[in-house]
Each structure stands twice: as structure tokens, then as C-alpha cells.
């Protein structure tokens, strides 16, 4: 297969598949090594996926809990990595753990709050009015009001700086699904923030 770029600049589908397959295999190899007790391999997996985990947690738990809980997600994964059947599915598996631990934290808080409806609990508010962080939290709150399908992909893209292909690789979603989620989610986010383009508003 020729690896010269076609005139339109797009990689042949086959080449993209080869790259994806290569990355896939590399990740599977890392997981296998981590299973065997290779701690450097696990640390590499951590480096590759911590932003995905953190970004997902931002849409599910109070923002100040996200970093701490991210560490716990990896601790949980480390202790249970032998239960992962398909080494190439580490990202989606980790995403499942993330959702579960976030839900668990929710239940803990609900139980500790003596019956308060945890679903009604708002994200923790930032009392440092006027700060850059306060503005970030305000926008995150709006992202969290979007359909769940869009929340993760938007947070991973806008907060954690992952590209669409990286989001797809981490989460197991197809490029197409990530692209649709990003574009539709962004349109909705812009509307709710009052940032809709004049063209979109008038067309």
C-alpha cells in the first residue's frame, strides 16, 4: 500500500485503519504488561487515560472531587485489571469504572445527607465570585445541563483538550459518533450560553 498522501490531503482509509490498529495493539500490549505486574506499563496507561477519567468525572461529581476520585478510579482498575477480558478495551472498561465510582460517590453523599435527593443536588458552587475558576464552573454547569450524550465529549474536548480522534480512542466510540456529539453538543452549548452564531441564528 502506498503511503504517499493523495492530492486532497486525506489519508487513505486503509492507512488510517492501520494506524488505529497499531495503536490498538500497542495499548493491548501495555495492558498485558500491566497485568503481569509491570508498574511502568500501568503508569503509561495512567498517563494516556487520566484526562478521560478526569473529564468524565467533571460531568458527574463536584469539580473539586474529580482529581481525587480519578486517582481512586485507577487504584480500582489496578486492583482489578486481571478481570479485564479484552486488553484492547482498557479505555471503555476504565470509563465504566469511572461511571460506577461516580455513581457510588453520589449514593454515599445522598446517604450521608440523610435522604436528600442526590439527583437534585447541584454541583458545588464556587464562592470565589469573579474569578476565572468561577467562570469555568459556570460554563461547566451549562455543559452538565446538556443531554448526557454530549456532556462527556464536550468536556473531554473543551476542558481536557483531547481531540476527536483521541476521544474516540479512549472511549471506544467511533469517530463519526464523536464528531456528531461534538457538533450537536457545541451548537446546543452555544445556544444556552447565548453564543449562537449570527449565521445560525438567522438561517
Amino acid at each position, binding site marked *: 500500500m502506498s503511503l504517499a498522501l493523495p492530492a486532497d490531503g486525506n489519508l487513505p482509509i486503509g492507512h488510517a485503519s492501520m494506524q488505529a490498529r497499531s495503536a490498538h495493539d500497542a495499548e493491548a500490549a501495555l495492558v498485558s504488561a500491566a497485568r503481569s505486574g509491570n*508498574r511502568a506499563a*500501568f503508569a503509561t496507561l495512567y498517563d494516556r487515560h487520566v484526562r478521560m477519567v478526569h473529564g468524565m468525572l*467533571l460531568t458527574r461529581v463536584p469539580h473539586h472531587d474529580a482529581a481525587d476520585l480519578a486517582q481512586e478510579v*485507577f487504584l480500582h482498575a489496578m486492583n482489578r485489571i486481571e478481570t479485564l477480558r479484552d486488553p484492547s478495551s482498557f479505555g471503555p472498561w476504565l470509563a465504566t469504572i469511572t461511571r460506577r465510582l461516580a455513581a457510588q460517590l453520589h449514593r*454515599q453523599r445522598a*446517604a450521608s445527607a440523610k435522604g436528600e435527593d442526590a439527583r437534585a443536588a447541584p454541583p458545588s458552587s464556587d464562592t470565589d465570585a469573579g474569578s476565572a475558576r468561577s467562570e*469555568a464552573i459556570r460554563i461547566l454547569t451549562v455543559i452538565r445541563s446538556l443531554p448526557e450524550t454530549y456532556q462527556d465529549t464536550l468536556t473531554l*474536548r473543551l476542558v481536557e483538550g483531547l481531540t476527536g480522534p483521541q476521544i474516540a480512542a479512549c472511549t471506544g466510540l467511533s469517530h463519526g459518533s464523536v464528531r*456528531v456529539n461534538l457538533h450537536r453538543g457545541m451548537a446546543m452549548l452555544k445556544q444556552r450560553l447565548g453564543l449562537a452564531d449570527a449565521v445560525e441564528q438567522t438561517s
Partner: protein
Amino acid sequence: MIESQPNLRPFDDDDYLFSGEGPVDATIAELEAKLAPLRYRPPATDWLRAQRVFSGSNRGALLAAAAILIMVTAVSWVQVGLPDSAAWSVRTLAGTATIDSADLSATGQFAVGQWLETGARSRVRVDVADIGGVTVHENSRLRLLRSEALREHRLQLAQGKIEAFIFAPPRLFFVDTPSAIAVDYGCQYTLEVDESGAGRLEVTLGWVSFEDGDRRSFVPRGAVCLTEPEHGPGTPFFADATAAFREALRVFDFEPGRETALDVILDHARPRDALTLWHLLTRVENDQIGLVYDRLAEFRAPPDGVKRQGILRGNRPMLERWRRDLNYLW
């Protein structure tokens, strides 16, 4: 297939939103900048980065980096091939410490059988093979008992305070104190021992089992467990439990007057204190188990297969099943 959407331009293959490349979309870029304060940043206690360091890939650079908080857990991942007499690296953080009474310079080696002691103003960091590390605080006496690949790493804390983080499978790293052994299940914790041999364990990540013979206290993140000579490890409790609850528990574990103390414990228990109540099921007198069971069941009904009579009789599988079900409360 992309559905047509009103007010939505067709997607571009290399658009800035998807690929982060191409002409910058000013609105998106502004949102990225505004959301940047929430982006993940490795915390000071980023133990997995520490793990990479301890694996040797960046050992020099990380030893020069900011302090990393590590807790001692009783899990030992002994490095393959590390002989029993292998020494651990030590670095002075403050003041002057000694190893077997010899002053420790900026760095040194801590070998099996040796005593490491810190003074009133000294602290050191100890690399635990390649599985984590321990920060030894002021006025501490610590001995390295064993360091054996794939079998066991074991320290003895005679007095003082240590914080350690260990990245290892469960039950490979142990810290002996005068009245209990801290057994790591993958976590970070602080362990203190005073001159009388009494101790305090507080877990900030993962789990520790605090043990003395058959008596075991499972201590999760956010929980504390006290220990005293002649009694062994007490009953674990969450650090945010009420003062009345904690004091009553201390009396229950270590002083006369357990019956009265139990009433106070049950009265002041919150749902999260199910951790404590579950442990009490096997620590109260037989005629009191029902009281604890009933209070615990108020917080969360026992799962299928766990029967009141079984718990009253101390049925171990039922106790374990209920513990796993209660886990979510803590």
C-alpha cells in the same frame, strides 16, 4: 449518516472542533481558555507518577521534584530478583537523621535489620524497593525487617509517624506496630505510634487491614482506626463521625463501660457509620448483636441471603456478603 439539522452547517473533515487543527474557531478557543482552570493537573500526591519514578525511569528527576505524600500500606510488591538483604534508598528532607546511630547525609541506604531514627526537626523519605515510598516524620524510630521480591516487604514502626504510598498488590507490604500490623490493600495512609505503643491509622486512599491475630479492622478511605497495647486494633470509624460517637467508640474499644458506650454509639450512628456497626456485629456480647443488627438494617436492609438469625450466630459468609453490600455507604 449525519442527520440534517436546522441551523447546523455540514461538518468539515478537519474542522477545529473535531481535530483541533485547521483555522481556529474563535468561539471554541475562547471556551477552551475559559474552561482551562478545570483541566486535569497532576496533584502533588500523584502516586502513579511516583510509581513511574520508583520504577526507575525518572528516578533522578523525581527525587529532585516536589514532595510526594505517600502512605504506608501493607501490600508488598517485592521487586523480582531483589535479595533479602537489599537496601532501600533514603533521602533527607530536613534536619539530621541516623541509621544505626550513624548520621545520615543527604542520601543513604537503609538495609534490613537497621534502625532509622529521626530527631525533633528531621524528616526523611525512604524508597520502598520500587513499589512506593515512606515519609518518616520527626521523632520516629523505624526498622526494616524484610525486603524480599514477590514475597514481603516489612517495616517496624516502634514510635513516631510515617506517611506512605505503596503501589502493589494486596498483602505484600506490612508495617508492624507494638499493638497491630498494618496490611496494605493498595492505598495511602498515615500511621502514628506513641511512647506507650498506642497507635492511630488514617487512610486517605484505598484500604488497609489493621490486624492483631484474628482481630481485623478493615479501614477504607476517610476512616481511622486506633490501636492500643493489650487490646489490639479498635473498631474503625470515619473521621467525620460525631464527637460523641467517636468518644463512645473509644470507650467501647479500650475502657470499661462497653454496654453504656454501645448505646451512645447506636444513638449517634449515621448511615455512613455502617462501617463501624458492621465491625461491631462481631465485637459485642451475644445478647447485643441484635441491637447492632437492627440499627444497621435501618440504614440498609441486608441483601438477599443474609438472615438475622445467621448474623446473630456469626455466620461468616453472611457477614461478608453484607459488608460488600454496605460498601456503597462508605
